[in-house]
């Protein structure tokens, strides 16, 4: 389906001298640029599903148990007379989380831009292995299809929360969604992980081996650094989730007891003995926490690049930016326990994880200040991509700061699993990563499709989205601090929370506006493929190599020789030059010094 959408866009690309059939060009393509588009469009379709789900459960929270024709139309038997069922509420929450975290913000974001930009920005003809790259995309596509199919099984889709903690996820008698729905969820995720690993290995090998002449590691754009480090985190942590998923499949289907012990449910004692759900939590979060950095680091890379280009200034503190990416990546693998302070884990371990977790604030602060300084005395070109980048820094700060509270084990006791957590992670990794993705799309759309997006629609898209994002998630902190647990189908059984009902209505209204406004973006995206203004070769006057490649997509990226690199990626407004940008492939002038980076 995804490949179809771009079918017509590049009909004019046909007739290039390679022997390409429709199938090898648009479907089983090994060209990184086409694969990037495939990732983007599949991710977009999954994103639409994920956002629709969130709009539905937000309506349930604001107007609990009220009949709603939308529910009746979309949920069918799960909404008798239009009243949402409690089981399907949990399923919506679960699948929303899964889709947004993995399918949109991991594959859709990292898959799209790593594929598009790594070869183009390092000066390579393609990925190290075009074939593996193709396999990686199709595995992702397959896992998406399975995840969507799982929405239609008889007993309901997986509904144990996106963290699928056993025993809830392991026992079909504990919850309808833990039957076939969970099986498909696990199969889908196992395939997804395989896809992600193939992709990551490819990115790592490509960055290490295929840089063009002169492209030293310290001349790489920050995007590439971010993708590179992200891929390394993925390779380190995704296999652990795969093992957790496999062990859970064993527990579910083959009677092992890795995660289960001493269970009495629906009148009978189960045979499981000796396992521990806490073990699953460790395995899950060993991926689960690095995962949020897998999501946010590529967004950081994109934002750094766009901010420099749109400010017409070098990114401030290039080396510090790399150091902080590395520091964040390292720390991200030793903080998973902060999701488990009150899991029954030894409190001493809680202390250790509090320590490592709060340390992450340091490289994060460095990055935030460097971005702000990049704006200082710039000549800011307020393109939609730039607006989303500024928006990214804003939500990253707002959402990141509350991490200081959640990372502190003593404070976590009281806000753990409340809406405070929901507000925190949506701002810091959900909205921020989404902004990073939008920024990337607005910025590299001309590179992908040879046409420009409509900027006025882009402005409106940004401003309404920005207001709604704060409108949804800022008040949400406060209902969390008032003690409202997340994942409650309705709060009407707790009169204690009656005074929060109006806050929930406000949040939902912002969420609905924010969700509906994305139609503007989708309209812009899909119509511009065909009718957008034709782009010039380097519309943003950027320095990086992708803009030296021809607009028309060709196999091998550059006609003739690959450009050589003579300088770092951020020579914007450099004194001694007439223009305010010097592309990386321009040799140093006589007597010109390269900055020591």
């Amino acid at each position, binding site marked *: 389906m995804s490949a179809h959408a771009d079918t017509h866009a590049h009909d004019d690309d046909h007739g290039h001298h390679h022997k390409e059939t429709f199938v090898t060009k648009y479907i089983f393509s090994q060209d990184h640029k086409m694969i990037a588009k495939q990732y983007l469009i599949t991710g977009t379709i999954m994103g639409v599903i994920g956002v629709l789900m969130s709009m539905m459960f937000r309506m349930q929270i604001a107007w609990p148990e009220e009949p709603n024709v939308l529910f009746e139309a979309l949920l069918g038997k799960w909404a008798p007379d239009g009243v949402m069922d409690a089981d399907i509420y949990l399923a919506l929450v679960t699948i929303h989380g899964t889709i947004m975290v993995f399918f949109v913000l991991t594959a859709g974001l990292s898959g799209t831009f790593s594929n598009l930009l790594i070869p183009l920005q390092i000066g390579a003809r393609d990925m190290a292995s075009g074939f593996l790259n193709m396999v990686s995309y199709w595995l992702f596509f397959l896992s998406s299809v399975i995840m969507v199919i799982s929405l239609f099984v008889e007993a309901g889709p997986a509904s144990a929360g996106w963290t699928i903690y056993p025993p809830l996820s392991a026992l079909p008698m504990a919850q309808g969604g833990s039957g076939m729905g969970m099986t498909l969820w696990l199969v889908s995720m196992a395939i997804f992980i395989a896809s992600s690993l193939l992709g990551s290995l490819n990115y790592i090998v490509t960055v290490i081996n295929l840089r063009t002449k002169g492209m030293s590691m310290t001349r790489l754009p920050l995007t590439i650094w971010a993708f590179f480090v992200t891929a390394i985190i993925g390779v380190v942590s995704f296999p652990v989730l795969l093992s957790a998923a496999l062990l859970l499949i064993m527990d579910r289907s083959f009677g092992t007891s890795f995660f289960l012990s001493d269970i009495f449910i629906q009148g009978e004692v189960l045979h499981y003995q*000796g396992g521990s759900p806490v073990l699953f939590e460790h395995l899950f979060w060993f991926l689960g926490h690095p995962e949020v950095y897998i999501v946010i680091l590529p967004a950081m890379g994109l934002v750094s690049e766009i901010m420099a280009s749109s400010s*017409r200034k070098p990114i401030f503190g290039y080396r510090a930016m790399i150091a902080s990416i590395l520091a964040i990546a390292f720390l991200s693998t030793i903080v998973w326990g902060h999701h488990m302070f009150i899991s029954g884990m030894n409190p001493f371990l809680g*202390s250790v994880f509090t320590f490592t977790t709060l340390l992450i604030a340091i490289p994060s602060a460095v990055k935030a200040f460097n971005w702000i300084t990049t704006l200082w005395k710039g000549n800011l070109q307020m393109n939609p991509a730039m607006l989303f980048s500024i928006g990214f820094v804003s939500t990253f700060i707002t959402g990141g700061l509350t991490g200081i509270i959640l990372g502190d084990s003593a404070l976590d006791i*009281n806000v753990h699993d409340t809406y405070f957590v929901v507000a925190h992670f949506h701002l810091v990794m959900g909205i921020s990563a989404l902004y990073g993705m939008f920024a990337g799309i607005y910025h590299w759309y001309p590179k992908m499709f040879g046409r420009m997006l409509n900027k006025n629609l882009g402005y409106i898209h940004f401003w309404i989205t920005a207001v709604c994002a704060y409108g949804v998630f800022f008040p949400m902190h406060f209902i969390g601090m008032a003690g409202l647990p997340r994942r409650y189908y309705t709060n009407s059984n707790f009169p204690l929370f009656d005074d929060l009902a109006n806050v929930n209505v406000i949040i939902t209204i912002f969420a609905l506006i924010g969700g509906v406004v994305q139609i503007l973006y989708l309209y812009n995206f899909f119509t511009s493929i065909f009718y*957008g203004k034709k782009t010039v070769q380097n519309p943003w006057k950027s320095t990086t190599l992708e803009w030296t490649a021809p607009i028309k997509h060709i196999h091998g990226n550059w006609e003739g020789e690959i450009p050589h690199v003579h300088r770092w990626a951020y020579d914007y407004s450099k004194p001694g030059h007439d223009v305010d940008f010097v592309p990386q492939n321009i040799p140093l002038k006589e007597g010109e010094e390269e900055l020591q980076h």
Partner: protein
Amino acid sequence: MTALLTIIVLVFILIAIWQMVKIFDLAQAKNESNTGVATDKDNTLNGYLMMGFLAFIYVITIVCFVKWGDLPLMSNSASAHGPTIDNLMIISMIIIFFVQTVTQFLLHYFAYKYKGEKGKKALFFADNNKLEAIWTIIPVIVLAGLIIYGLNTWINIMGVDESDDPLVVELYAQQFNWKARYGGADNTLGKANVRLIDIDRANILGLDESDPDAQDDVITTELHLPVGRPVLFKMRSQDVLHSAYMPHFRAQMNCVPGMITQFGFTPTVTTADMRQTPQMIEKVANINKIRVENSKPLIAKGEEPLERYEFDYLLLCNKICGKSHYNMQMKIVVETQEEYDAWMKEQKEFKNSLVN
């Protein structure tokens, strides 16, 4: 219905926006070719909007704090360790508030101040070690303080001092309700395992019937605690993960099948006293006003109005546990030692509750 109307309104707004953009596009097409790249006009407009957005962030912050900032959990803790958590929370919030205000200002102000103009050249400013050092070291110092304070608090809360003879209470979780088990006169819980559950004999928590410690155990569906006495909770779950969340006591611990977890605190305010605090009176009055308002449509339909709300401490389940997760709660009553003793006397001991 409300939801549907909202959606319809939204769709109309969207169509309106779309049409407006078309008009914009047509207007721009005339004077300068709309290349999709920002012009000076765009830069200026968006620069001003950035300042507007900054104002929006400040306003929403102030509104949230004023309207919802004193919701119960910031101020009225009812346990001995509660105030230490609240202090740490307030200090963290002040730091966050300060950093948030300053950095958001700089970000949006710079975006406004340095909005692009044709012919202007940006400052080539790539690096400054002194600046980097400053914004590395300041967070280091602040975080070091927070870490030390936080860990100190954490260790004090989690460290259980067996020497001050805590009242031992088991919290037992199952889909979808809570039970409490008291050790009886010896304050010692009898051995238990879900494999020993015998529904026919009403041995619902799986107590070992041969264990002498189990004989005088007391199983209840309400949690009563004497004020001022340390309590040590032992948590168990029979089926899936649950979490015993007692927000007013700043207490939470997961209940994990196959293992026993624990959490201890000392309740300091009785339910009766808490109901009399001015804050709580105001909160309850407000909630009842809302409930009266919400009852009106019910009465119009000929249904029962909502019950009047009276404050009680609650134990909530805070770990997704299945369909009725949203309604897994238990009332907590904190009372004087005498009231507690009188209540306990009315409860059945385990050996007398079995069906033979």
